[in-house]
């Protein structure tokens, strides 16, 4: 079905439920759906699990901690070893109010890809012999060991692209793709904020980064500038 066009990010996320698992695209400042994140904050939903590369690195995901909306984060960057610029999430994590599942970045994206592509898991060497392998199955195949990681999916995905067409095709700019195209495949409800919505056919077929089949909702928003100050 063609993507549904919403006038506001608040309307676009309105039916995400308490307790939902929400995939959040973006890498620090690039391709990050800040308007949708802030709309989710305003929605007041609680008990959420966020799956995102990072929290508290200049992104706005940490805003969801102001009113303790996040029960859990599955991501790759969360608690900074340096201790500089601690986040609200870090405080809640330390207080036992929010859980963290730290996942190697390559494993996170492959788990999401498996979830979106109908695959039963990922066999990787990443994490073998480390804390990441604890409690997980290790397969020996032809004398080599592989760590089995399971697929990951969301109830909803919040994405950011540069442009959408009316069907829901998404075009990314520069390094704005990162987690977005795979997360688009791995959630029951896929919502994209974009800077511009154009007619079908205006995005050249070679430049479609996420085909329309994956996208349920699009909403045009002025991007909220974010930056990691280190």
């Amino acid at each position, binding site marked *: 079905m063609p993507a549904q066009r919403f006038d506001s990010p608040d309307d676009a996320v309105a039916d995400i439920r308490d307790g939902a698992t929400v995939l959040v695209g973006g890498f620090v400042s690039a391709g990050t759906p800040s308007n949708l994140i802030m709309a989710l904050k305003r929605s007041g939903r609680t008990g959420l699990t966020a799956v995102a590369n990072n929290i508290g690195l200049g992104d706005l995901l940490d805003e969801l901690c102001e009113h303790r909306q996040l029960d859990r984060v599955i991501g790759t960057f969360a608690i900074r070893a340096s201790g500089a610029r601690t986040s609200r999430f870090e405080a809640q994590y330390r207080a036992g109010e929010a859980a963290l599942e730290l996942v190697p970045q390559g494993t996170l994206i492959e788990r999401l890809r498996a979830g979106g592509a109908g695959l039963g898991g990922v066999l990787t060497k990443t994490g073998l012999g480390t*804390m990441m392998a604890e409690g997980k199955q290790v397969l020996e195949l032809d004398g080599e060991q592989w760590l089995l990681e399971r697929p990951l999916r969301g109830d909803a995905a919040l994405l950011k692209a540069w442009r959408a067409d009316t069907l829901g095709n998404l075009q990314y700019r520069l390094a704005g793709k990162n987690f977005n195209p795979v997360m688009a495949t791995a959630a029951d409800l896929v919502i994209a904020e974009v800077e511009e919505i154009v007619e079908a056919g205006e995005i050249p077929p070679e430049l479609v980064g996420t085909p329309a089949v994956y996208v349920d909702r699009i909403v045009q928003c002025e991007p909220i500038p974010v930056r990691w100050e280190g």
Partner: protein
Amino acid sequence: MADAPPIGLSRELIALRAARELEPGSVVNLGIGLPTLVAGFVDSADGIMFQAENGILGYAGVSESDFDSDLINAGGQPVDLVPGASFFDTAESFAMIRGGHIDAAVLGGLQVSARGDLANWYVPARGGGSVGGAMDLAVGARKLIVAMAHVTRDGEPRIVESCEYPLTAGRCVDVIITDLAVIDVRVDGLVLRETAPGISAEQVARWTGAPLQIPDVVPEMAL
């Protein structure tokens, strides 16, 4: 250890020395922090392509011009591109990394063991951790260069018999570049290759927490 460790290279000079370790025409990933500085010390004529795990092959280094939120390296810093750069998503990026297509990675370290185990993502005293792409790079890069201070702020060696900190990956480090030395990790252990200007082989050994083989001739780093 009442004595104080010697003053070695600055972070910038460690990065410069690490840059010299890179082969012309190679594809290189730089970790966050000190390794990021390496991009500033390569000769553009060498045609080294830097890969950022967030989806760029061919960035030139940190940009001095305007910030574009969609054009950053893995440390969130704005970057410039070289001619022939390309963009891709995270799945493609880590297929590149884990499939063995990255010639070299330069990562920071908390501890490196005598057999080349790396710990660089988790400080037990702080917990939680941030792993990013470190485990994938440690496993996937063809050559792994660790660039770090030789000792901790408290004067404890970071090069140790066996890592106390949780591992990033086992037996993955090829070369350690510190403020005091360049040390190769070989199957038979650690071998001193170069010393920093003004640093003796004995000083390096004194501040290294694992057996260190010292060849008859150990040249000083050319910086």
